[in-house]
């Protein structure tokens, strides 16, 4: 049977080069980098190298990179750390379409008395920057807005948002786990303060991430303990995974061109193919300002979980924003925030590609999908 993985916004295959780079740190180089002997001493320099590799991907200073355990930790550290550092009752501005790793901490801070404003989006999933400027006001604030949406791939204009935030002296954090490695990020040109990255979205393993903290940003330590990460995150460094993340960043930079051209072409082919072969099918979200690897398609009158199980039966892995797969009884908060009608929301299906996908795989999905849609529509009382 075929094995076509099109769920790369959920997690990615670990690159063989990454695994290879990590192996010595399980076998020979297992010392604690803080130790005052050669076991530890020889390991420390590899962490320094990885830090440079991560910094290089976003054009930051290595000293501005803090290794974390995942994207969620980066988001929590940034938002809760900045709120704590700013004193009581600061205003936090975010959007209704953020990942739970951002919405969760924001709502937690709201319960603790902070004012939290969640900006809505239009039917293309885009923000209204005039509204953003208005709610930002003159008072100090923390802003957390994702760079690209994990479900629809819609890209927010973070460079513009950063300029507005800077004008008003707000602290800006962006969840960049979906954009890292997909297009060029330059934190020297974009005046944001903090940016989270997750390893397993860029072909490193799960359990490692990084948070960029611009020099001078006031943010309290989230994991209080040892002196590691320059006192910004306690805990013995996860050396093999840090080395793996560094290697993944090197590969991401190397393949970035491929990501924006070849993968975007495959995605466009998939999208056009499915729209042409399956009637009553629509694309969710802004198709211009969008990640090159993502398409979110609604197959009307049928339900997402049923689509995923049929796809899985023929070896294709995708994802859905339907109620049954979102872990709740309602369709995804992103799809609902965009005002997608219920006829389409429950059948929203996300295909997200990576550099390991081939044209042949895409043709396979285009060929097999119409039969699945037809089958489920035959069952549907709405057709």
């Amino acid at each position, binding site marked *: 049977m075929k094995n076509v993985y099109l769920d790369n916004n959920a997690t990615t295959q670990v690159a063989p080069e990454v695994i290879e780079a990590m192996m010595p740190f399980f076998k020979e180089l297992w010392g604690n980098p803080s130790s005052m002997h050669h076991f530890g001493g020889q390991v420390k320099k590899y962490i320094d190298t990885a830090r440079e590799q991560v910094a290089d991907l976003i054009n930051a200073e290595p000293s501005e990179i803090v290794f974390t355990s995942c994207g969620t930790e980066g988001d929590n550290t940034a938002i809760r750390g900045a709120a704590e550092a700013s004193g009581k009752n600061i205003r936090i501005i975010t959007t209704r379409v953020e990942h739970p790793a951002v919405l969760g901490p924001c709502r937690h801070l709201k319960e603790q008395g902070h004012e939290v404003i969640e900006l809505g989006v239009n039917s293309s999933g885009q923000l209204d920057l005039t509204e953003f400027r208005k709610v930002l006001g003159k008072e100090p604030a923390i802003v957390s807005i994702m760079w690209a949406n994990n479900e629809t791939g819609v890209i927010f204009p973070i460079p513009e948002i950063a300029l507005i935030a800077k004008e008003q002296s707000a602290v800006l954090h962006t969840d960049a786990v979906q954009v890292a490695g997909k297009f060029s990020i330059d934190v020297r040109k974009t005046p944001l303060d903090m940016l989270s990255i997750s390893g397993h979205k860029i072909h490193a393993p799960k359990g490692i991430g990084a948070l960029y903290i611009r020099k001078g940003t006031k943010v309290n330590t989230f994991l209080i303990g040892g002196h590691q990460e320059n006192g910004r995150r306690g805990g013995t460094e996860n050396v093999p995974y840090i080395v793996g993340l560094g290697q993944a960043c090197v590969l991401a930079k190397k393949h970035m061109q491929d990501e924006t051209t070849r993968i975007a072409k495959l995605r466009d082919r998939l999208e056009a193919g499915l729209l042409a072969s399956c009637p009553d099918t629509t694309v969710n979200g802004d198709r211009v300002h969008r990640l090159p690897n993502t398409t979110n398609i609604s197959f009307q009158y049928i*339900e997402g979980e049923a689509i995923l199980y049929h796809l899985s039966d023929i070896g294709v892995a995708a994802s859905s924003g339907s109620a049954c797969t979102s872990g709740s009884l309602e369709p995804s908060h992103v799809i609902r925030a965009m005002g997608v009608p219920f006829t389409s929301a429950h059948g929203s299906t996300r295909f997200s590609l990576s550099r390991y996908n081939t044209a042949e795989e895409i043709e396979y999905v285009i060929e097999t999908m119409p039969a699945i849609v037809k089958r489920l529509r035959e*069952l*549907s009382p709405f057709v």
Partner: protein
Amino acid sequence: MWDYTDKVLDHFRNPRNVGLVNDPDGTGEVGSLACGDALKLTFKLDENKKISEAKFKTFGCASAIASSSALTEIIKGMTLEEAQKVTNQDIANFLGGLPEQKMHCSVMGREALEAAIENYRTGKTEKKIIQGKVVCTCFGVTEEEIERVVRDNNLTTVEQVTNYCKAGGGCGGCHNDIANIIDRVRKERDTKSATALKPAKMTVLQKVKLIEETLDREIRTMLKRDGGDIELIDVSGNIVKISFRGMCAGCQAAPITMKDVVEAKLREFVSSDLIVEEDKS
């Protein structure tokens, strides 16, 4: 992925009785696109007033499709009196069980069946109309429907009610009301069992029957949640011999479960002098 049984996956992949019956005697429609699942059931009766044909159309997830398919298989050949007694548990059991969060699919099946029978008897609208006080406004679930799932499935928590009929699964504003309904239904049932169900003097047959009912209602659902089961082996005088099955067999906590739960419940609902022993043979 969900932990679906092979039977659920089989009925999802190869659904039985898809479509609409020609010139149906009864039609029932429940759910909506907004809710994320909907089912249209049609049936035809033969000259003996038995269901000769039942077909469905379903919008929903794998377990919604499987539950609908199971429902049509269950009711074929039944009289309407028999069909009326089909519970959501029967549908779930037919499929070898459903994940707890998916039990609402089986409830949707039972509701469609009731709506179709109602349509046959009264000729009234095929669509289910919301009657009575709506408790959960997000999903339009009434007090009566919540009472029904609590009673039929012996539910004890708000979370379970959400899993069984979606009530409370949206904004969460009705959680207190649901908790009150659970309390009320359980109290009503407890008093009912304590008085009405317990005849002053029981024959051996009555006693065995009451023990079986109590085990089923009070114990089995709880054990099955952990993959276990219980079986009544023998009743002799006031000695009740039982045996644990599945995950409960050999479980360290089994002796405690037996004394603290099984014996207590049997004493409460059957007779206060009962002694429960585990059958080791």
